[in-house]
């Protein structure tokens, strides 16, 4: 039996150019569509219809803490009042609410807060107020304060 001719090992050169072209195109596409967006977060609020109309729910033991935000004609914040008492700025509001939460002890989870804002108030102030009352950061940890937040019906338009 004649021996098969031994084939020499041939080096097959693959043409890499088209692949590299495509890969670079892809890379440029993804680089250009990259859009760095600041992270967004939510404040989850549960508001059935009855609640925002100022009607207390049946299981409500304590009256809600009423936070009033007054606006200046240009929409900026004029004053903050908690249950009628004037408060200087959001940091004092946070301290005051933290005190109320500590006093409430175990029933702190039932505390409810009602935001009463002027119609023309800039919405950013509402978020600042919600930030101030819903929690505080202590040593890098979040301590939750008030979870139930409602809105009073809008005052004069």
């Amino acid at each position: 039996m004649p021996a098969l001719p031994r084939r020499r090992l041939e080096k097959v050169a693959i043409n890499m150019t088209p692949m590299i072209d495509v890969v670079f195109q892809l890379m440029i596409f993804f680089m250009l569509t990259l859009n760095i967006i600041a992270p967004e977060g939510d404040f989850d609020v549960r508001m059935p219809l009855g609640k925002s109309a100022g009607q207390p729910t049946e299981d409500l033991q304590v009256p809600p803490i009423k936070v009033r935000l007054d606006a200046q004609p240009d929409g900026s914040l004029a004053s903050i009042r908690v249950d009628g008492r004037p408060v200087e700025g959001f940091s004092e509001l946070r301290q005051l609410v933290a005190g109320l939460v500590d006093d409430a002890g175990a029933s702190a989870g039932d505390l409810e807060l009602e935001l009463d804002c002027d119609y023309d108030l800039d919405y950013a102030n509402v978020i600042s107020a919600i930030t101030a009352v819903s929690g505080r950061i202590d040593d890098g940890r979040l301590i939750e304060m008030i979870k139930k937040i409602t809105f009073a019906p809008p005052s004069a338009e």
Partner: protein
Amino acid sequence: MTRKTTGPSTVENDMTPMIDVTFQLITFFMFVLNFSEAEQDERIQLPASQLAKPAEGVLETPITMQLTATGGVLYAGEIVPVDQITTPLRREREIIVAAGKDPKQATVIVRADGRASTGDVQRVIRACQEEGFERFALRAHYEPE
């Protein structure tokens, strides 16, 4: 004098490391590509907050209400005045009900501009409540202090 001529020699570069790195880069850019941009709009500048929690997982049947600084609601690429928002909301509600879901379980994401009037935001919330929505997520930029 004759010089020994050498033929045109091809220098073969090893392409493997470059292709490796390029694929790594492509993978990186594919992962950071953000597909949720669709619901974001540069016309709205969200207020900043250090406590805004990034949404845990995907919200069930979210409806996004985007309120501009001038008091219009961005809906389907158009600006709808606040007092006419009921019609599109009713449509959203019908879609949710037709899909066999409960509007009470749907979350309304409120993306309102920081300069919008609080009263307008409340009117939008009220309109949503009248259509049976209860869950609201007030959206803000997360900004650590």
